[in-house]
């Protein structure tokens, strides 16, 4: 019994249908965590990418080091670090936010590279034209460079979103009750792990396929010239 739903383990079919509502509640948590993490990754990644391009050598080097460190260490350990060490400094966040932050930090390191590649792919003439028009650096990024970058980076960003969805089960180790955590808990109580785990696996497979197909269509629908920010 969980969230008011009783499970029925007589056959695998009744078992599946009886735990499906519980797993679907977990699915909403999974999707919320991925959405929150991805939002953090998109914003923080852009900050990293711009800092990395800073003209002050110390800032660009330090950012490069931080990004490299985040990229080359496991999400699980980063998550443990945030979960156990932040409270030592008086920052007590709910487990869900800690998880979203960990996902966001790791993927910010990935997205910053995507932004960087996208920004570097904008022809140099665009920068010169912006200078000729007397635009400030801020205006150049906002009105000229980033709008042209968006169509180029959307496919890669989408792939990272899909990858992130598949990494959200890690959050279950810090007590976030998403799909995988719930499946494991059901398994612990019924001693029947395979049905809930298979169900979760299938839902992930479905999510991945749907997201990939959606991305493919989005990519075709995007205007190639760029998207104005205002």
């Amino acid at each position, binding site marked *: 019994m969980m969230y008011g739903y009783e499970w029925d383990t007589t056959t695998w079919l009744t078992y599946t249908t009886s735990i499906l509502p519980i797993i679907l509640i977990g699915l909403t948590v999974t999707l919320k965590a991925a959405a929150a993490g991805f939002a953090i990754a998109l914003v923080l990644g852009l900050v990293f990418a711009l800092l990395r391009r800073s003209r002050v050598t110390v800032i660009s080097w330090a950012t490069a080091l931080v990004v490299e*460190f985040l*990229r*080359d*260490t*496991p*999400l*699980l*350990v*980063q998550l*443990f*670090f945030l979960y*156990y*060490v932040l409270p*030592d400094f008086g920052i007590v966040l709910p487990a869900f936010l800690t998880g979203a932050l960990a996902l966001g930090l790791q993927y910010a390191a990935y997205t910053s590279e995507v932004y960087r590649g996208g920004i570097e792919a904008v022809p140099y003439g665009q920068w010169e034209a912006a200078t000729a028009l007397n635009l400030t650096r801020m205006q150049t990024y906002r009105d000229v460079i980033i709008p042209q970058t968006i169509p180029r980076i959307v496919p890669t960003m989408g792939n990272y979103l899909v990858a992130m969805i*598949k*990494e*959200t*089960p*890690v959050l*279950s*180790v810090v007590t976030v009750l998403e799909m*995988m955590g719930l499946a*494991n808990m059901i*398994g612990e109580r019924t001693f029947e*792990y*395979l049905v809930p*785990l*298979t169900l*979760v*696996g*299938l839902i*992930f*497979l479905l999510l*991945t*396929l749907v997201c990939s197909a959606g991305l493919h269509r989005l990519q075709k629908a995007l205007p190639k010239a760029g998207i104005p920010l205002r």
Partner: protein
Amino acid sequence: MNWTAYLPMLWHGAMVTMTITLAAIVIGAALAFFFGILRVEGGPILSRIALCYTEVFRGTSLFVQLFWFYYALPLVGLSLSPTTTGILVLAAHAGGYGAEIVRGALSSVSTQQLEAARALNFSRIQTLFRISLPQAVVEMMPAFGNLAIETLKLSSLVSLISIADLTFAAQSIRNITLNSASIYSITLVCYFAMSLVLMAVIRVIETFVRRGNVFPRGAQF
């Protein structure tokens, strides 16, 4: 008790992590080539089987796969140790991504090369091993490097199926000493160092593969 007394435990964990990662990379590479080549050369049935393999291992989370095989294998009478299960699942996961890399690289070999091979009366096997693969392997190396780092990072998940790797050691020491900041910082630095070493090794292999290319540089277009 001072946490420094537990450093040997962390070292032992790091060794386990390294063993598991290397074993998974080697087996994963074999799986990647096997299924990647099947995808391209396997004909209608075998290439579909390979497609199913890659989609399943890429599409379902590694986290789910680890637990699934951990609980499922004993039910079919295969009682492997957690370490073996961990290595195999990690390898199958890396193999799924690797097969996609192999497929991509093989299909990016220019068609003129294949036409030339046919004109010279090469068999399919000869074309694959003497024309396509030598050129494709060079293209695969950077992506394989990323995949190896990814495998090292994901190997931390095996701690959840009770394997005493670096993450598991860190967790145990934290539970005893409650000194989270130092333990996790050291653990993160350990992983970072291992990643850097792995990257350096991959660089060496990459230059080796480039130099060992059976084609002289001028012959590639």
